[in-house]
Each structure stands twice: as C-alpha cells, then as structure tokens.
C-alpha cells in the first residue's frame, strides 16, 4: 500500500470510492496491528472515531462537508480533548480527562477530521527521543531499536508507519521537525502565534507551537489552513488572515533565493546527512532557485539560551500540577508541604524534574540577571540574525538534525548529548519562525531531514518550497519495508475515555470531592 496522503484520501472520499468509516476502520486495524510494537498511541478512541466517521459519511452523502471531512488523523496527547484523557505523557495526568477541547481540536473537528486517538510523547514535551514518556518509549518504524525523535515521537511514528495519514504535534525546540526528520516524513511548525495554544498543555509558552505531521507538504498545507488563525482565547495568537496555503504551493521557484548558513554545516553534522542536504540544494537549483550564503553568527548561543528560557517558563507552567485540583495526588499525606512534595515527586519523571529545577534556579534571586536576562538578550540577537538573513534570502535551508535516528538509550545517560540533537531546530523557535522538515534521502539506511525556514508568517513560502521539492524528488513517497520488533509492552487503551463525569454549574466546574 502506498503511504496514504490526505489529498489522496480526500479525493477518494469525494468520489465516494471510499467511506470515512472504511478509512477509520483501516487506521484502527493498522493501530491494532502495529501499536504494540511502536507504542505510538497512548489512547485509541475507536468508538468515538467510528461515530464521527458515520457523521462524516452522512455529510458527504448529502454532498456537503469540506475537503477534510471524514479524514482520519491523530492528536498528540498534549491537546486537551473533552471526555478523552489527555496525559501529556506523564503519570501526573495519567487519568486526567479535560472538560474542554483545545482550539486546535475544535477546529479540526469542525473541519470534519476524525480523531482516532492520542499519540505518545515525551513527558510534558520535554525530550528529543520520546524516551521520557511515562507510557514508555516510541519505536522508530524504520528500526525498532531506534528512537523516532521527540517530543512528538508518537505522532511521527504513527504517520511514518501508515497508522494515520496525519497527526498533530507541538514544537518547542524542534519537537515536530526533528522526529519528522528521523521518521522520514513531513513535519511543519508554523510561526509562533499562527496557531492557537489554547488547550495545548504548556511547556514553554513563548516557544510552544502547534503544527502538523503528514506525508507531504501539500497535506501539511491543507491541514494548516484548518488549524491556523486568530483565537481570542490566546493572547499571543496572531490576528492575521490565514492564506489559502494549498493554493500557493504551486508557484515556481525560478529566481527565488535559498539562503544557506555555513553554521548549519559544522563539525557536529554527520557527513552523510550533510551530503543528502547538499544534494537536496542541488534539486532546488534544478528548479530554478539560487543558492546564496547567509550567516547566523549567534547560532551557537541557541542551545544555552533555550535551556535557560524553556526551563524557566516550564518551572512556572508546571506549578499548577500540585495535587490540589486535578491530576495525580499523593496518597496519605500529613501536611500541605508533603502533598506538594510527594505529588510532584511521584507524578513527574526525571527530565521534567531536571528542567523544573534548572528553571527555578535561573529565575531565582541573584541569578535572574546572570541567566534569564542574558538569555533574553541572546534570544534577540538570534532573532536579529534571522531578520538580516531574510533580507538576502526568501528561505533558509539546512539539515533538520545533525544525525539520523539514534538508538534508544544511546543518549539517555547524558542529557546534554540529547540537547545537542536540537542544535539546528532550536534557533527557529527562539526566533518564532516557521520551519518544515521534509525527507531528502538516507544516511546509514535511515531517513534524513531537510529543514526549510521562512520569515515570520511566511508559511506560504516554506510550504511552496517544500512542495516544489516534493514534485521533483519522491523521498516522501517511500514506504517502510521493515516489520517491527515483537514482545514489547502493549500500552493501548481502546476504551478511549475513563468515564469521569463533570457537572456544569454556570461555568465548567468539576464538582464533588477531589480524588484522594
């Protein structure tokens, strides 16, 4: 079977050559067959999905619905879904059922997309390998011994393995682009503020951005049109019209300028990965684009800057997980202090604790100026580098990650080694820019990602370049010819929801006693 695309499935559905129910059932079968190996899904919402599929089919039968009506997909388990648990990959939220839908969830449902489940992820989106998940690591469909990347590893693996044609992700420091690169699919992170963060559980508010995994840039464009747009519930969301991205991807690249920063081709870049990226630049030249050199002199500051800003924000964002109102609560505590300490000790994993502690430290009295304030200055310098680069180029290109997929466990002992994997993606978040990773060949038989970065709100240009590349190269159509490993713990909850109920008193308010 050809890896399914959203655009292709949309055509099938409109021609009534397939029903939404059939597509959803197929996804559910694939999940049933492979999720035990991959561990891409934390929760599968089979019943709900079939109900939604039938509703979509009814619409389609009446000749109604939009281009995405009836298409199955999955949500990263960081997006709050009413009535379906949202775990964020953490024990802290193992049984948490949000009483509301995230804006992204709402919009995709309104477009007729059918959610089949919630995908695995690094705990609270903190990680680059999906190994910090309380629900266990996700395996890379290309090689079960390897990581799919992270933090949106579940979404990436699910799309790469053909379990779903598309899935949402979030990208705080590369959490969409890096796993997309490692699993050989298209992963798109829009401009900061382009997609609402409402209902997306916060890790680092000034960096977090929702985006999409799909088989192609064209699919990403179709899905982004639905996800993007101003949301009055998110003060940081941009009040700008959303272009019809899918209509703009066909433009010719003749005479367009691709900026290539030498900083992206440093000693840390795997030689084979570098070779694939350079070959991809050659394809762009064949398409009529010009390669120009641009410089990002402060790129080296991006990892230290990120590892001050992101933990600082996370230390504050995760303070609400205190055992008082929702989520895990330590049992048999004797005092308030013990409630806090034990709840958080039991509910959070090591990486989350590490970042909370780092963040608390860099914000504390006497250190704020030395760390947080300096990081903000460095952040401005990095953003300024990009601004100047975009004066000379329409798009910036380079590798997504320094290496292809690494082995599970390979970097878990050394957090800094893990952090360094995001060297090419993190600066893009610090500057708030749109970026995409598209497959551009193989290194050591594993997919390599090409990263394209656009100016702020230049999603159309990024998607246009990516799509034009995909008309000239077909890496994105490659299927995985391996079977997964066996004997892994099955972490699948096919019931979907935990059945915890809420009564509504004026505003949404869980009543009754907090769970002990």
């Amino acid at each position: 079977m050809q890896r399914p695309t959203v655009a292709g499935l949309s055509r099938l559905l409109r021609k009534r050559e397939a029903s939404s129910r059939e597509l959803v059932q197929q996804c559910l079968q694939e999940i049933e067959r492979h999720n035990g190996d991959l561990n891409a899904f934390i929760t599968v919402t089979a019943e709900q999905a079939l109900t939604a599929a039938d509703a979509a089919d009814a619409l389609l039968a009446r000749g109604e619905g939009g281009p995405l009506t009836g298409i199955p997909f999955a949500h990263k388990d960081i997006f709050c879904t009413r009535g379906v648990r949202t775990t964020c990959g953490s024990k802290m939220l193992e049984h948490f059922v949000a009483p509301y839908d995230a804006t992204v969830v709402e919009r995709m449902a309104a477009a007729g997309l059918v959610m089949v489940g919630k995908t695995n992820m690094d705990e609270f989106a903190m990680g680059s390998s999906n190994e910090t998940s309380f629900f266990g690591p996700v395996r890379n469909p290309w090689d079960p011994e390897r990581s799919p990347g992270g933090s949106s590893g579940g979404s990436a693996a699910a799309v790469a393995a053909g379990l779903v044609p598309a899935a949402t992700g979030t990208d705080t420091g590369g959490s969409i682009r890096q796993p997309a690169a490692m699993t050989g699919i298209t992963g798109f992170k829009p401009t900061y503020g382009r997609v609402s963060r409402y209902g997306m559980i916060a890790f680092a508010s000034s960096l977090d951005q929702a985006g999409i995994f799909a088989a192609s840039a064209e699919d990403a464009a179709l899905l982004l049109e639905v996800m993007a747009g101003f949301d009055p519930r998110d003060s940081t969301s941009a009040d700008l019209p959303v272009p019809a991205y899918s209509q703009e991807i066909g433009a010719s690249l003749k005479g367009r300028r691709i900026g290539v920063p030498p900083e992206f081709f440093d000693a840390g870049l795997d030689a084979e990965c570098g070779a694939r990226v350079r070959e991809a630049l050659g394809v762009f030249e064949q398409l009529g684009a010009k390669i120009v050199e641009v410089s990002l002199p402060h790129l080296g500051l991006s990892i230290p800057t990120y590892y001050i800003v992101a933990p600082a924000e996370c230390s504050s964002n995760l303070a609400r997980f205190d055992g008082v109102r929702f989520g895990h609560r330590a049992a048999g505590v004797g005092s308030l202090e013990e409630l806090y300490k034990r709840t958080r000790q039991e509910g959070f994993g090591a990486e989350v604790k590490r970042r909370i502690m780092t963040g608390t430290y860099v914000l504390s009295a006497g250190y704020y100026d030395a760390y947080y304030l300096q990081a903000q200055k460095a952040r401005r310098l990095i953003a300024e580098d990009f601004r100047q680069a975009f004066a000379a180029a329409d798009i910036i290109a380079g590798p997504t990650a320094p290496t292809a997929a690494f082995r599970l466990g390979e970097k878990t002992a050394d957090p800094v080694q893990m952090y360094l994997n995001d060297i090419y993606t993190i600066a893009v978040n610090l500057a708030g820019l749109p970026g995409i990773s598209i497959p551009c060949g193989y290194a050591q038989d594993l997919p390599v990602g090409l990263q394209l970065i656009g100016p702020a709100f230049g999603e159309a240009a990024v998607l246009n370049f990516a799509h034009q590349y995909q008309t000239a190269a077909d890496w994105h159509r490659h299927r995985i010819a391996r079977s997964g490993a066996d004997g892994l713990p099955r972490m699948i909850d096919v019931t979907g929801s935990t059945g915890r109920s809420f009564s509504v008193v004026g505003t949404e308010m869980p009543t009754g006693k907090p769970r002990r």
Partner: protein
Amino acid sequence: MTWEPVIGLEIHAQLATRAKIFSGAATAYGAAPNTQACLVDLGYPGVLPVLNGAAVRMAVKFGLAVGATVARRSVFARKNYFYPDLPKGYQISQYELPIVQGGAVAIALDDGSHKTVRLTRAHLEEDAGKSLHESFHGQSGIDLNRAGTPLLEIVSEPDLRSAKEAAAYMRKIHQLVRYIGICDGNMQEGSFRCDANVSVRAAGAAKLGTRAEIKNLNSFRFLERAILFEIERQIGILEEGGRVVQETRLYDPDRDETRSMRSKEEANDYRYFPDPDLLPLVIDEPFIEQARAELPELPEARAARFVAEFGLATPDAETLTGARETADYFEGVVGALGGREPRLAANWVVGELAAALNRDATAIEASRVDAGALAGLIARIIDQTISGKIAKEVFEAMWAGEGAADEIIARKGLRQITDSGALEQAIDQVIAANPAQLAEFRAGKDKLFGFFVGQVMKATGGKANPAQLNDLLKKKLPG
C-alpha cells in the same frame, strides 16, 4: 529622644468589573463556593489568560485622577509561589513596568492645612482564592470564586508621619476610587484592604529605620490602631537599645496588638518574570483620552467649583464632594431650585439629611427624601411659606413617608403667619400679658427681646415669620 514614625501604605482596591481580569467568570460577591470559577480561574492545564480591557480602563482612570504617568507600555509578570488557593502556582501581577507610575494625592491635616502624599505606583494584578480552614474535619476547603478578581495595588511613598495621616490617606484613596467608579470600597467584603509599612527613626535622621509590614487591614480604625501599636512597639525596642526586625505582622483587633507572622512566609523567592502568555500591554493616546473623557469631575475640582459657583464654605464643599453620590444629590437639589439659595441647600444636605441618613444607615442614593423632594421643601423656606424651624418638622414627616412638603404643610396647617394683622394681634396679646418684662426691657434689659420672640412663637405655634416678627417687635416694644 524624639522618634519620628515613617509610614507607607499598599492598598488593594478590587476593581468593579463584571468579569475577572483574565477570564470571563463573574466577580459578584457571595456566590456559593466555586460556582464563579471557570477553567482559567482553576488553572486547568492548557488554559490561557486574556486581559479584561475594563480593568485596564479603570487603572488608567485612577492614574489620571492622581496625576500619574500612565505607562504606554506595561508588562504583566508572574509571581511564583505555592499555595492551595493560588491555582496556577503563580499570581499574574505587574512588577518592573506597572501601568500607573507616580502621582500624588492631598490629605487634610487636623490644623486644616493640606499635605501631599506621593504615590510610587499602582499596578494591576489578580486576586487569589480563599482557604477555609473551619468545618472540614481537619482538612481545608478552597473557594476559588475570588481567584482572578482584578485588583489595583496602590503603593504610596513613605510620606506618612502618623497613624492619623495614614488613616486620612487611606480614606482619601477610598473616597477617590469610589468617586471615579472603579471600586465599590466595600471593606467587609474585602474590596478595599491595606498593608502598612511602618518604621520609626530618631527625629531628624535621614536614614529610614527597619520596617515591619502589617498585613490585611480592612478598616480605617484598625489601620490607625495597628499603626499606633506598632509605633509604640518599635520605639520601645529602640529605647531599650534593641533592633527592629524586618518582618510581616498581623493586627489582632480583639487584643489591639500586632503579632509576628511565621517568618517562614518570608522565605519566598517569587522568581518574577514576564508572563509569556500575555503580550506587553500597550496603551495608546485614544484609549487614555477615552478614559479621561469618562472620568467624572474630581472631588477637589468639584469642591472648588462649589465654592466659586455657589458661594459655599470650603468645609461644606469638601463634605459634599466626599462621595460622588452626595455631590450629585446636592447638585440635584440646586438644579431643582433653579439655582436659588445653594448655601441653604448645602446646609440641608450636610445637616438634616445627613443626620437622617446616618440615623437610618441609609446611603444617599437610597434616601427616602430624594433631591427633588428636598428642593420642594427648601422652596417653601425660600418663599417664606414656612420657617426653617417648621421645615425641620416637615422634613421629619417627609422622611416618615407622609408625602411631599406641600401636602404635609397643608395637612398640618403649618403655613407661617405672614399676615401682619394677625401677627400684630398676637404680639399685642403677649405684650399685654407680660407687663413686668416689658418694663424691664424698656429699662434697658435688651436680652428680654428674645423672651418676647419666644412667647409670640409659642402663641402662634411656631408659625410666625421670624423676620417679620423681629421687625414688628422692634417697632412695638420700645413703646
């Protein structure tokens, strides 16, 4: 050794918005626990704050009213600490760049002079919820109805030098926030509360002493008592050669003393940083001008106008402008009288009416005698239908709900005797009945003039026109 107290206040005024500062939940007081807290107030995963523009407009109005700088760009920051009634684990406040910077108010001192008290700043923030420690069998209940209620924290410079001044300043701010309609000032409901920073130093010393902060004072009297106690306490320590410890203290009204809170509370490092969920608050000129246009005439300006326009005495003008409702009522009376006799109207509002309102603990806007009705009564004094004295009787009847002034005057037959024939008759009778007093008066005992006035008044049931009576007596008594 003489000691000089140095006091600065931090006042928390709850802004009178309908919705909370970062969510759409209602701010009304007294609802059942947790019925006015939405997901944003509860700090649920994934929710985000959205600033309520009404709270911003109110803060701007305050800034304009105290002549402060309204920051064109201010920043919301997170104040991080753990407490069960703080759902997010941080309070959204303003730290480095508050919305209102500087400004000043004038307070009246006992000798009638005025003193300027400078403001450091006023910033927007959200209130926390309430922890209820009783009736939960050793557990604590959390009520988050108040969580997210908008507050304006108004910080003064350490310009106050006595408990009395501090109370006068707190009253002044209380009057002002109510006057410009940004806070209901209800202290029982916690809408207006205050922390006092108190220190003492040797008179003439330049350096400030170590301060203690007294938290959560919710009445003017408690503020005054607490500061008095604290000044004495600190002087006592210093005179014994000891040192004042910087700490947070609580005032216990039952024992009239301040006590140290556990110093554990002091160990908080709030780790302020700009809230990344909220963009910097940028205020443009049109927004400020709109707020300015919505501001009522401020008390000082209005009092000055009352003096200039109506010829009122300054103390009366200040009393009348103490609350906007009082000033509005007064102007309503003056308007209904077509501008006649504003001083008489002022006397009635600050006199009889104020006494009646006090007696019945009624707000002026709910007065049983409205401005139009009171003007109806005063009009009868002006046109000499009744005397001022009879008018008091009529007023009481009006207060008791017996109808309008004219009805009561007619029903009770209270029109004063302005018929000089009838009055002369009454005077002649009184003179004839008191020959001894008449003789004494004529022998030079001028004081007896009042006796005759009283007698005639008695004889006419108080209905004699006093001025007319005076004139006639002056003619008749000397013989």
